[in-house]
């Protein structure tokens, strides 16, 4: 056991004991858990394990600090309702917003940020990280970092387009069915059941084999496959709302179906839809990655994170970290989006405790 691991353990122990003495439960539980994990990891794999744990702690602290300043900055910059909301926002939500902002910048300004072109061959295959390529090279010697940046554009763009399209179709059809009821509702319900009864990966496989794997058909096919899910969710939430008195009142006022959908029902059905959006958004990456596993994803040399994981996946069996880089990019975005979603859910549930 080295001095480094010992001092790490000692520091954690001191924090735990202090938290316990001052009855700070929110501090004591995590620090005690981390202490236990560190002890196990250090015993099992020595100093390298301790360094990993220390880095992880550093990352968590670093991102908390970044999130704190980002929130403070937003509070200064914003006015009115948004400012008030942000003042009560948890750090996790601020962190999520920060990451989403950074990803959006990367996606929008990819050609300006990336040091090399998307498919430009810079060095040898799997070149190690150096000054030229900060994350090393991929299987053809293209710059991993540049491809990650371009990947943000392609992956996130595709995912947003697909999810938005699916939600647009799903919610409008769902709301329409809920308001109209009767045979329209029945017909749409049956159609949706039929589509959902076909496993999504297989259906995507069939449709993409028929329509080809251009980006447009990829977006349309996945959106088509996800629409029924959104429809069902919207329909079930809206079903509980349409029977409310205020909807009846609006109907008696002679409001149009469009108005009812948009102004009366949608705002009240938003919470579960947002929660669903957060997960669905990420499932698109995975479906695309799964399709590329079967040979039908985004076309190379276009960079997308799912395919980047796929292309290098076999390296993981030898303990190489390369496939973890794009996987981490996906994970970070998934977690961030859902942090923000959690916050919105929490606000819309009306809970104050």
């Amino acid at each position, binding site marked *: 056991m080295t001095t480094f691991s010992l001092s790490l353990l000692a520091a954690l122990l001191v924090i735990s004991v202090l938290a316990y003495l001052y009855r700070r439960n*929110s501090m004591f*539980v*995590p620090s005690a*858990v981390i202490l236990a994990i560190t002890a196990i990891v250090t015993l099992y794999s020595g100093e390298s394990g301790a360094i990993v744990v220390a880095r992880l702690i550093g990352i968590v602290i670093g991102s908390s600090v970044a999130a704190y300043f980002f929130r403070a900055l937003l509070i200064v910059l914003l006015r009115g309702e948004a400012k008030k909301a942000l003042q009560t926002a*948890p750090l*996790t939500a601020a962190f999520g917003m920060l990451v989403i902002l950074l990803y959006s910048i990367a996606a929008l300004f990819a050609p300006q940020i990336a040091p090399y072109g998307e498919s430009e061959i810079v060095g040898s295959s799997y070149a190690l990280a150096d000054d030229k390529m900060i994350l090393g090279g991929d299987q053809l010697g293209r710059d991993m970092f540049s491809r990650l940046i371009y990947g943000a554009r392609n992956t996130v763009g595709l995912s947003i387009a697909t999810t938005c399209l699916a939600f647009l179709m799903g919610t409008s059809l769902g709301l329409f069915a809920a308001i109209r009821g009767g045979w329209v509702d029945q017909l749409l319900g*049956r159609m949706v*059941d*039929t589509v*959902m*009864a*076909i*496993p*999504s*990966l*297989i259906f995507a*496989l*069939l*449709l993409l*084999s*028929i329509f080809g794997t251009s980006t447009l058909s990829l977006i349309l096919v996945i959106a088509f496959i996800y629409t029924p899910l959104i429809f069902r969710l919207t329909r079930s939430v809206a079903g509980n709302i349409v029977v409310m008195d205020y909807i009846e009142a609006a109907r008696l006022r002679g409001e149009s179906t469009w108005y009812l959908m948009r102004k009366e029902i949608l705002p009240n059905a938003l*919470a*579960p839809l947002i*929660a669903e959006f957060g*997960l669905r958004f*990420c*499932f698109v*990456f*995975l479906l695309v*990655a*799964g399709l590329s*596993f*079967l040979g039908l994803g985004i076309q190379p040399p276009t960079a997308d994170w*799912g395919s980047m*994981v*796929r292309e290098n*996946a*076999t390296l*993981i*069996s030898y*303990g190489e970290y390369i*496939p973890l880089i794009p*996987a981490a990019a*996906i*994970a970070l*975005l*998934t*977690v961030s989006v*859902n*942090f923000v979603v*959690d916050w919105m*859910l*929490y606000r819309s*549930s*009306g*809970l104050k405790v």
Partner: protein
Amino acid sequence: MNDLVAIVVKRLGFGLVTLLAVSIIIFGAVELLPGDLAQAVLGQGATEETVRELRAQLGLDRSPPERYLAWLGGVFQGDFGQSLASKKDVASLIGPRFSNTLFLALYAAAIAVPLAMFLGIAAALYRNSWFDRATNVGTLTAISSPEFFVGYILILFLAIKNPWFPALSNVTPDMAFTERLNRLFLPAMTMVLVVTAHMMRMTRAAIINLLASPYIEMARLKGVPQYKVIVKHALPNAWAPIINVVALNLAYLITGVVLVEVVFVYPGIGQLLVDSVTKRDFPVVQACCLIFAATYILLNLAADVGAIVSNPRLRHRK
């Protein structure tokens, strides 16, 4: 109770119609795929002459409606036909593979459902605590990687670096139950990681959604302990959405496991389906899709029945 039976019967009827519609869609899709079985089987070695001869021998030269009706006629007599590629009986081809798939799905569900419920309830109970955040980050990270990659990582740590579990799940029919559980541990864990996040988050959301209700407020004001509020008061009303998401994920465990099968070399139905699509082996594709569709319909029905049984208000609504 009679109401319930009526609902079930009606839904089963709709289910049959859905199956028919699915079979038409699948037939149409396979028809629209470029190329046909004759070309796929012969590959680069295909000449016009041999392709024509093979088509004639397999009956592929008949018109599509004719072939569909012939197939449908067979199905009504309980005959799903023969695989065009291997000339084997479809039922005997699918039977053992489907039971393998079902076994793996149940194995994964037996771990994933209780785990997700427990985590979801605990996360709702200690919402916004360290535990809640850590659980969320953990489960979300698990679903951020494509499932084949999750499988690779599990293999690396639990089969290569520490040889605790076998990396291949090539089961045989005469394998003992415990041996089977051991062989299937890694694929089952992969699937657990894939489905837990969705179920756990929905459970958590369903419960938190109810916590602002007046009756929960009431219970809390009475001084009922926090965990009792959730388990006794919130959970019973959250069952409907939870059962729904569990059913959806069970369906996924059965129908969405192609990649896990490939990674762990498990002889399930997914691989058969993908191979048959590639070879345009219509009877097999059709039979597999119908089994999946039927599974989905039945699970959905079970979820709705479960929701109705768990909620007296729904039972007497109409």
